């Protein structure tokens, strides 16, 4: 009896600890959303209000009516969509090569794809900036697309390769025996099966590009051409009295599409970077 109670007590203690970790980890997110809905009086008060019982949408409306908010959201959307669209098509071809063929130079290509993803972005800003300036690609969205492809492209190759490996080769071989051409196999078998993988990879590429900051910060000068992350980063420091409510509302709005997308694909994609290692 006492032993069982002891075990139950232990379990309760572990659960309590788990809940404490949950509270600490999630608190910043909660605080962002909670602040976004509070009145200004509640926000500046020394004693914080934990739950806004009379939520206001004033900060959201203030945030979206700030200059260039929609313009910069649009810029982000354009940059990200173009980057992902081009990358996913090119990367898919290369992923097929990696997952389905053995060829000399394959190892070198794998090194390239993995190595590039490890380059710190800060280390690339000077050469990218100077070269893009040379071809008048600074302060235009296309220049940013080019820089985003430096990390999105290898990421897509590597992730799609993982998805392709999950599709049994036998399906394609059987179709070949039945007289399909390689192209036919590609279109009729591989592409439909790769649907979920293509979507998940695109979504994840979308998220990483949407979140990117440093390249956009360096390349885009006009406020009307910036991305939403750069817009958000300039929110502070424009005046002495920060409008915390509006800042948190804008932060919430910036995070929402990312959070939704991320929740959809996290399970499928999360292990790309450590794949293999997890499996041993």
């Amino acid at each position, binding site marked *: 009896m006492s032993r069982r109670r002891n075990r139950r007590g232990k379990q309760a203690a572990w659960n309590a600890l788990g809940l404490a970790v949950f509270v600490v980890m999630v608190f*910043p997110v909660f605080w962002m959303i909670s602040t976004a809905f509070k009145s200004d009086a509640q926000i500046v008060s020394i004693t914080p209000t934990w739950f806004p019982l009379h939520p206001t949408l004033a900060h959201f409306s203030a945030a979206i009516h700030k200059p260039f908010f929609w313009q910069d959201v649009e810029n982000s959307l354009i940059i990200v969509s173009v980057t992902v669209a081009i990358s996913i098509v090119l990367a898919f071809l290369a992923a097929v090569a990696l997952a389905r063929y053995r060829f000399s130079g394959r190892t070198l290509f794998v090194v390239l794809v993995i190595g590039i993803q490890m380059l710190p972005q800060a280390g690339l800003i*000077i050469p990218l900036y100077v070269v893009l300036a040379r071809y008048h690609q600074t302060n235009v969205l296309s220049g940013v697309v080019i820089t985003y492809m430096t990390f999105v492209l290898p990421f897509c190759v590597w992730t799609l390769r993982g998805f392709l490996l999950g599709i049994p080769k036998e399906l394609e071989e059987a179709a070949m025996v039945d007289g399909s051409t390689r192209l036919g196999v590609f279109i009729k078998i591989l592409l439909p099966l790769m649907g979920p993988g293509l979507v998940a990879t695109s979504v994840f590429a979308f998220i990483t590009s949407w979140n990117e900051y440093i390249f956009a910060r360096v390349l885009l000068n006009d406020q009307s051409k910036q991305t939403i992350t750069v817009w958000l980063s300039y929110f502070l420091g424009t005046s002495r009295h920060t409008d915390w409510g509006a800042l948190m509302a804008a932060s919430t709005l910036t995070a929402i599409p990312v959070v939704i997308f991320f929740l959809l694909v996290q399970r499928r994609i999360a292990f790309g970077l450590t794949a293999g290692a997890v499996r041993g």
Partner: protein
Amino acid sequence: MPSDSSTTAAAGTLLGTSRRRRRLWSSLARASTPYALIVPVVAVIGVILGYPLVWLVKLSTEQYGLFELIKHHGPSIGLANYRSVLHDQIFWHTLLRTVVFTAANVFFTIVLGMLIALLLTRVSTWVRVLLTSGLVLVWSMPVVVAVEVWNWMTNYQNGVLNYVLTELHLGNYFQHDWYGSTTSQLSMVTLLIVWGALPFVVITLYAGLAQVPHDLVEAAEVDGAAPWRVFRDITLPIIRPILLILTSLSIIWDFGVFTQPYLLIGQAKMTPGNFLMSIYLFEEGYFKSDYGRGAAISLLMLLLVAVLSVIYVRKMVRIGVAE
């Protein structure tokens, strides 16, 4: 008659060669398919990354400022940029600071990540589901958004952190300025980075822990092995490969981190006294428009990271080549 047979023979060889040729063609096509498939990616990477990297090397040996940027041409000055950087006290101090900073970040990320992952194996299912969902939510936060939230929470006037610490009687933090000293500034950055990195580390490690055979752990516990010994002798050897990969990834990421320190400490408070490597590079190269010298710093930094990445890249390449 013989002529007839010879024509047949000739026709035969002709047919044979054409078939052979066709076979040769198809095998050639087969062999070239993978190359045709990777050519677009290789070409694009060559243009958008390879070409700039060649430029980087060239730039690092040139006097290249705003004037040269407009002229598209800079005079060569040999290794003067490198000499200038390597004789710069700030460079060495920054390097040392970045190494210590990286070590602290990686240490906290991995140790806390391991502890939380182990905790996940102990809690009831509903707590586990709740905690994992919370972690995924944190994981999905864009970095710039997280920085703004941190700015707000640690704000000296009415930040919630000061209030909570004071209420918990951990000292008087009324209007405490967390960005007053370098150590405090960088600690805040570390807090932010570890918070942001934990979800990935915990969830990956937890997936690894699932592979630890249950009966083995139970047998050891029945034999009276202390929890620490069970961890060291059973759990650790199994998850070591994952731990190794996570550690090297964290080292690479934390060494090159830019957005969090740059935005949390703020451009206005950036001084040579609190530079991290990527910020030193940004301020010296981009902000001061001294692209030649910035290129030299970039190259040194990329080389350092390349050395740091060797373990990770080798491991991943082995996996990638095997499959």
